[in-house]
């Protein structure tokens, strides 16, 4: 019997290396050496959107996509919205912009409720948090007419769309654009990236959302795991180039590893 299941050797090796690097960076962070994240340009966009909302005295809408936290493939996208939501809510509270968050995440609703409430408390304005309007929950099917109708009525000046999105991305993004909002959108769902990029003024593609969440929350665990993931990406790049060269030379690369 082989030590590693046949056909899974390469995957196991990459997994061990990536996990090892994440643990290494976590150890470094615990010792005080936090990995440095490049400042993403979308952070300035968030501040710009909040400033626009304050100037125009209109709302900022935060949409955190759909999905359920019980599904592993949806969880990273959903969790990445928490860090962004906390930052955006606190900044809105500090500068006096009204934030409205219609969430479609049933399990995450309680977490997002607490995040927003705590953000208002940190900003020193707990009385401005409205438990019935700052954050509301609705099922995904109801969100489409809600966003289309309410955005037209309430005319938000800015909107941030992040998380795990399904096919209604274009409906929400375009409805908000028509209402006159400046929008920043991002998702890690491959199928909906084109819609996010096309329909929004600014966009975050896939991991930029994870990096944004790590940068804004300043969580050492998030930053360290991003650094470890980057090592994984370097490995993938090297393997891709080697595989390309070997494949062009006629060598059957797969038999080396499986």
């Amino acid at each position, binding site marked *: *019997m*082989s*030590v*590693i*299941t046949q056909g*899974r050797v390469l*995957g*196991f090796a990459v*997994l061990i290396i*990536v*996990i090892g690097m*994440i*643990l290494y960076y*976590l150890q470094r962070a615990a010792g005080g050496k936090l990995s440095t994240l490049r400042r993403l340009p979308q952070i300035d966009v968030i501040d710009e959107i909040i400033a626009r909302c304050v100037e125009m005295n209109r709302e900022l809408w935060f949409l955190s996509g759909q999905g*359920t*936290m*019980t599904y*592993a493939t949806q*969880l*990273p996208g959903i*969790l990445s919205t928490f860090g962004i939501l906390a930052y955006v809510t606190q900044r809105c509270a500090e500068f006096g912009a009204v934030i409205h968050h219609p969430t479609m995440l*049933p*399990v995450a*609703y*309680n*977490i997002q409720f607490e995040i927003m409430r705590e953000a208002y408390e940190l900003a020193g304005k707990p009385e401005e948090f409205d438990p*019935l309007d700052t954050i*509301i*929950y*609705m*099922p995904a*099917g109801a969100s*489409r*007419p809600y966003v289309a109708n309410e955005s037209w009525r309430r005319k938000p000046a800015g909107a941030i769309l992040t998380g795990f999105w399904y*096919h*209604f991305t*274009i*409906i929400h*993004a*375009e*409805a908000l*654009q*028509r209402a006159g909002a400046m929008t920043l959108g991002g998702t*890690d769902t*491959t199928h909906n990236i084109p819609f996010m*990029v*096309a*329909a929004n003024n600014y966009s975050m*593609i*896939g*991991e930029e959302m*994870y990096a944004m969440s790590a940068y804004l929350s300043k*969580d050492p*665990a*998030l930053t360290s*795991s991003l650094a*470890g*993931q980057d090592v*994984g*990406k370097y490995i993938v790049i090297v393997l891709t180039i080697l595989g390309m060269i070997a494949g062009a030379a006629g060598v059957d690369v797969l038999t080396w590893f499986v």
Partner: protein
Amino acid sequence: MTIPLYIVSILGVWMIAEYFLPFLNPLVPTTDMIRTYATILAAASWGLGTAILCLAHGRRIYRQTKDPFWGYSVMFLICFLAMLGAALTQGLKGTTYLWFYNYIIGPTGQALYSTTAFYVTTAGYRVFRFRNMDAAVLLIAGMFVMWSVLPLFTGPFPVLVVIAGWINNVIAVAAYRGFVMGVALGIIGLAVRVFLHKHREVLA
């Protein structure tokens, strides 16, 4: 709070190890049992979402003076109880339940989904412009891919299919592959954080 986190960590590492290490094969029946329990829990989570929705609307009805649209919450509860009653009394193949499904949920779902066409049209008019090189590339690639799936265009101009096929099978595939790998690494990072108890939000 600590015990659930340890359950998550131990079971997570166990599931990963069992996938890669064949000498753990004797544990496979246990792993299959864990997956089955996860299926049951996932079904139960739908009930949680329903409960939260009912509580939220119930709160709005209770505080009706603060919310001018509380009447819609009453409407929601009526519809919810009607559908629930039909399912519980007649089952999922009962005539009343299927009537609600086929004549209310079906058409409204289709109507909402079909609004995508109008939003895409107006988004296209707004977005597809030769503002700069990036926008030009988006415009040209998008138009070729759109034309390649419309018989009105592919009939007289079959070369559109060849061009769009190259865009889909070479450029798009390369970009998506990189993207999917990045997301996969993100999931690995999340798993490590959860197993090390550094991401407690997963327990809601």
